[in-house]
């Protein structure tokens, strides 16, 4: 099991190679959260009523250099849903997001986003927020520069951002509450602020689907709450959101549906159905059992 894990991570995020004990520690708080949060339940019902499929993944295999990280993955996400993909490091979460975003070709099966194959014509509907480790934070760019990059895809070659793009950039920065830092160099921000800047960059192009890779990795509980509140606001506006995480403490509270992934789909459904000890240990493997044992 360890070989494919290591392999996956050397390509997705060399610096993020797992904290092997992380899962075990984080599992315990997830279980007590299973019930409650009526406000969010109401929101959830409202959105599942909305028709239409945002993402349809059918029998997908994909990977790097001939080795499959994803093995016959199938699931669907309805428009307006907030779906979490959980699984241990190296289980294929990031790979799955890249496949949905059209960044990685599939070896078998198919992916449809809003009924279309991933192609440049649907790219502008997708806002992608990468793992923060994938970026060089000492790069000489400010918050405004980074968020402005969100407008580049729709501008042609040789065209500079104009007043329209600057306005959209300002609005997005304001939306994530980062106006006070508009001219700060990105390396001076905290981890949570950097995440918000990335979310703002995705928002600039008014995506119908947001894909976030580990948006709450390495940020404290208050910041996690702030990021999820922001995402919930977007969901209220009709945006479909898919986020990966290996932090289980937030799963029950925020996601409408949870996909447990370990190269293939272990379980998929509402948190209260999916977050059983059996599926979690099947997803996370033996170190979870250890953690659960200590929690008891």
């Amino acid at each position, binding site marked *: 099991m360890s070989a494919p894990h290591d392999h996956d991570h050397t390509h997705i995020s060399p610096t993020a190679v797992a904290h092997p004990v992380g899962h075990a520690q984080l599992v315990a708080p997830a279980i007590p959260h299973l019930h409650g949060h009526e406000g969010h339940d109401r929101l959830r019902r409202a959105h599942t009523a909305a028709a239409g499929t945002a993402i349809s993944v059918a029998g997908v295999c994909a990977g790097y250099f001939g080795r499959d990280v994803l093995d016959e993955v199938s699931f669907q996400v309805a428009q307006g849903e907030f779906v979490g993909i959980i699984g241990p490091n190296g289980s294929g979460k990031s790979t799955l997001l890249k496949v949905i975003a059209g960044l990685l070709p599939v070896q078998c099966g198919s992916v449809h986003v809003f009924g279309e194959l991933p192609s440049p014509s649907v790219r502008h509907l997708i806002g992608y927020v990468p793992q923060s480790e994938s970026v060089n934070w000492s*790069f000489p760019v400010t918050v405004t*520069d980074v968020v402005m990059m969100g407008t580049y895809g729709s501008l042609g070659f040789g065209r500079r951002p104009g007043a329209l793009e600057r306005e959209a950039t300002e609005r997005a920065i304001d939306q994530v509450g980062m106006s006070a830092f508009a001219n700060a160099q990105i390396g001076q921000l905290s981890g949570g602020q950097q995440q918000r800047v990335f979310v703002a960059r995705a928002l600039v192009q008014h995506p119908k689907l947001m894909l976030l890779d580990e948006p709450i990795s390495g940020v404290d509980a208050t910041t996690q709450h702030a990021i999820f509140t922001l995402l919930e606001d977007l969901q209220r506006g009709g945006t479909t959101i898919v986020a990966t995480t290996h932090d289980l403490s937030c799963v029950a509270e925020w996601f409408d549906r949870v996909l447990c992934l370990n190269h293939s789909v272990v379980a998929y459904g509402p948190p209260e159905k999916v977050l059983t000890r059996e599926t979690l240990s099947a997803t996370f493997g033996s170190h979870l059992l250890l953690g659960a044992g200590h929690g008891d």
Partner: protein
Amino acid sequence: MELLSAPLQNDFMIRALIAATLIGLTCSVVGVYVVLRNMSFIGDGLAHASFAGIVIAYLFKFDLYLGGLIFTILTALGIGAVSKKSEVSLDTTIGVFFTAAFALGIALMSRVRTYVVDLQDFLFGNILAIDRTDIIIIAVLALAVLAVVMVLYKELLYASFDPVSAAASGLPVDALSYVLLVMLAVTIIVSLQAAGIILVAALLVTPAACAYQLTNRFAPMMLISALVGIGSGIVGLYLSYYLNIASGATIVLVATACFFLAMALSPKRRSLLSALLEARRTEVRAR
């Protein structure tokens, strides 16, 4: 004033100054991407690879410039393709390719019995030997590279900072890195006559690394890098004229002096220093 104008009585000095300006500008602008993408090794790699192309061109009595250019572009594309399609990192791929090409050059040259003066110039550079035709070639190629940087400015910026998100938003990230590799190959060939194969990497990396110390913004970094590149080219040439030392080496040493000066003056460093002092002060107050 006399000091500045005296060397200009010589035509070769005027040509050398024009060449130093064009080369300094092109190298230092492209060098910003090289430094920010952490691919400093590529400058050295492609410069050494060009040697094989130059030797091959020499053996076949082909134009040395053109031979070197074609071979270096092919090597650059090869490096890009191999590092993309295999699990080998960019640095390792460069390491394999450039030593192979350089070895090929040496092997071929060892077959040439006569002492090859022209090739010597390519190894160490001789900006004073640049003629009218060279100036025109350098100008055309340098302006072409700068034009590409202007047109693809924002795309190259996004793809250098965050290639995954740039690709997700629809930018052709792979094509952009090939464009950058070809620009680097052209820039290096253009600069060989000034600094030679051994030192050309310094023209790419040092001005940009200097600028990186002084600013937190991308456009100012490019501007400062360009000023350092042009400035060290001109200052280096004058120094080499009066001190009677090799021009390429002098230009590189002036740029290096700028780098250390920038390190000393760096606001980033200052802020680190003041942060340390502040921490020290609070510590003292706590006692």
